[in-house]
């Protein structure tokens, strides 16, 4: 959770929601949350569990359509 929040603090385009899964069962069920933490990216891709900072960021960047600037090389590997 901490990493998602850190990203949100660094860039206003990023929104980090921390969702208490048991209080929002419909949403949890929609995103097939069976174990936590589980991170959903733009309502589609997901990351299960906790990852170290650089891996978590790479996983997020991989899901984005190619950007015009920055992040050269990111997303090269499947």
């Amino acid at each position, binding site marked *: 959770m901490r990493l998602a929040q850190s990203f*949100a603090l660094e*860039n206003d*385009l990023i*929104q980090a*929601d921390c969702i208490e899964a048991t*209080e929002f069962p419909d949403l949890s069920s929609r995103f097939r949350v069976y174990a936590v933490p589980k*991170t959903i990216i733009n309502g589609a891709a997901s990351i299960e569990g906790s990852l170290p900072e650089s891996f978590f960021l790479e996983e997020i960047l991989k899901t984005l359509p190619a950007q015009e600037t920055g*992040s050269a090389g990111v997303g090269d590997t499947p």
Partner: protein
Amino acid sequence: MSLLREQDAIEVRERLKAMTSPVRLVHFTQELNLDYGRETKQLLEELSGLSDQLKLEVHNFLLEKDQAAEYGVAMVPATVICNGQAKGIRFYGMPAGYEFANLLDAILMVSQSDSGLSAESREKVAAITQPIHLQVFVTPT
């Protein structure tokens, strides 16, 4: 009866002394049909009483739709951690147990404007030019 135990309140007050700028907790809730709505609000009231730098704003989700939209709040209970214009960090549900520690971390991080990320990550995150919505599902234990 308070939700925060006396000893916990003392420790939290101590931790919040590390705040370097004010943080607003913008809370959206509703009176009826909301599990833990009342407890969540009470917890935030107790928490915000532990630092002069922490201000709690409570909004009625059903009556204040414009405010909810402004803060991007889609469901309740919701708490947005704000400092200046930034409002990208939200908590949905009651931040109890492990999530309470998480909330404290978020408050301190926002107050100190320090994400704690490596220089390399900061650069990559700053280069992102499209909106990203991260929904992290957690449980209190």
